[in-house]
């Protein structure tokens, strides 16, 4: 077909079509690149919600299991109940312990009152001992006065004896010359003898009085010792008065035991901490629940997220607060509005990590090296704005398209 081949108009048209096809491919390709840069998207996303393992705070067999697997529970709804009887008994014992302590405190108060009375008696004893000391001191003085008195009597008797003796010496020579009768001399001699006896008697009296002084002195010492003893007894009784503090100090401990028992008893009933879905419930009534060991799982259905992994090169375009379109692949026709909550700050992309130390203590660095590195991807949390009635499931596949600040319709 030489006429067509050489038709310049057709040649011209063919060139225009060729150039416009190539140019169109370039332009649309650039548009696609620009669009994907402006609105980063990924289909490596999953629906996510926070979840907890619900675990009892007390041990015991589960007597009532109020929920079923996959059931929806409202906040505060009963999940299960653990046999409360042992905890009721513990509470009763704690209460009785406190009552016992109160009784002991009353008893102790009475004992202390009696000991205080004993202290009063001991104090009276010391007063009495002091009076005894005074009396003994007076007796000593009295005995000393009696000694002086007896001494005076002895002096008087001695004077009398001296007078009679002199008198006798005077009279006796007169008998030879017959100036006095024999009877008169005998009379005087008898008087001298009597005076001598009187002096002897007074000496004995004086010894007796001195012995009495010593006896009174000894009695005084004894009363002094008795006074000291009574003082010591007063101190002893004062120190032996018991205090109530060791018992009253136990009150707080016993009250705390009651509160602990009440707490444990209350924890026999386990309630849902939030609106949740029950998951992984594989036990029945009668299962033995251990403290802190999870019985089943609760998915927090109040907030749902799509966790989307974006390449590190896209992260600078994704800021918290940006809107995003979220598609859940179980319902591909529904578009949800999402808001970027946060962007992940750490992942572990490869099993061989920079700076990993092996058992030999040296860094693990491989000789082989990839020429082409794949971009690391970080999880971005996109909160899904949807009513709680939306039936999301954890780990559902999702697609996330970041829409920037513009409000998604």
């Amino acid at each position, binding site marked *: 077909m030489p006429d*067509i081949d050489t038709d310049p*108009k057709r040649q011209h*048209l063919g060139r225009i079509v060729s150039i416009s096809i190539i140019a169109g491919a370039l332009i649309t390709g650039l548009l696609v690149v620009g669009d994907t840069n402006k609105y980063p998207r990924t289909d490596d996303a999953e629906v996510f919600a926070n979840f907890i393992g619900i675990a009892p705070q007390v041990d015991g067999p589960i007597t009532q299991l109020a929920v079923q697997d996959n059931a929806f529970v409202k906040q505060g709804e009963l999940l299960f109940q653990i046999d409360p009887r042992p905890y009721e008994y513990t509470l009763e014992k704690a209460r009785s312990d406190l009552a016992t302590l109160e009784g002991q405190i009353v008893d102790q108060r009475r004992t202390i009152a009696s000991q205080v009375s004993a202290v009063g008696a001991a104090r009276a004893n010391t007063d009495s001992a002091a009076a005894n000391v005074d009396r003994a001191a007076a007796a000593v003085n009295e005995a000393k006065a009696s000694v002086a008195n007896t001494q005076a009597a002895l002096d008087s008797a001695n004077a009398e004896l001296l007078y009679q003796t002199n008198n006798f010496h005077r009279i006796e020579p007169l008998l030879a010359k017959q100036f006095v009768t024999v009877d008169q001399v005998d009379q005087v001699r008898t008087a001298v003898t009597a005076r001598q006896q009187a002096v002897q008697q007074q000496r004995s009296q004086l010894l007796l009085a001195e012995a009495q002084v010593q006896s009174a002195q000894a009695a005084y010492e004894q009363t002094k010792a008795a006074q000291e003893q009574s003082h010591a007894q007063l101190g002893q009784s004062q120190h032996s008065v018991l205090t109530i503090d060791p018992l009253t100090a136990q009150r707080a401990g016993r009250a705390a035991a009651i509160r602990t028992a009440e707490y444990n008893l209350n924890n026999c009933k386990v309630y849902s901490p939030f609106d949740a879905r029950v998951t992984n419930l594989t036990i029945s009534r009668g299962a033995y629940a251990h403290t802190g060991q999870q019985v089943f799982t609760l998915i927090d259905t109040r907030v749902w997220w799509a966790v989307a992994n974006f390449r590190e090169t896209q992260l600078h375009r994704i800021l918290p607060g940006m809107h995003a379109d979220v598609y859940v692949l179980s319902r591909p026709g*529904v578009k949800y509005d999402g808001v970027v909550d946060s962007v992940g700050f750490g992942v572990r992309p490869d099993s061989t990590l920079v700076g990993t130390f092996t058992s030999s203590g040296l860094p693990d660095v491989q000789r082989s090296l990839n020429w082409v590195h794949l971009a690391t991807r970080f999880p971005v949390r996109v909160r899904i704005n949807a009513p709680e009635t939306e039936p999301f499931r954890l780990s559902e596949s999702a697609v996330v398209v970041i829409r920037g600040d513009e409000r998604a319709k």
Partner: protein
Amino acid sequence: MTGVFPSSRGQGMNRAVAISVSSALTLSAAGCSRAPTFNILGSFFPSWILCGVLGILLTVAARLLFVRIKLEPELSPLILVYPCLTAFFTFTLWLVFFS
């Protein structure tokens, strides 16, 4: 073969392009809010694969059209034109339906 035929054909093609572009704009304006992923027997295929397959099919159709209107001999270089046409269809479909 007269000179009128290709020009009238060209006008028809332009009209077809105009119709397809306007319908595509209408579709995109209608807010095609669908997930850019397709479930085929439990496997999710990304939208660009679908666009690529459609682009190849459209290029095959375009080539048939070029052959029929005897325009293909005027196109050059063919090894670049048809891949670019495929890419153009793919990108356009993607931009219209999934952007």
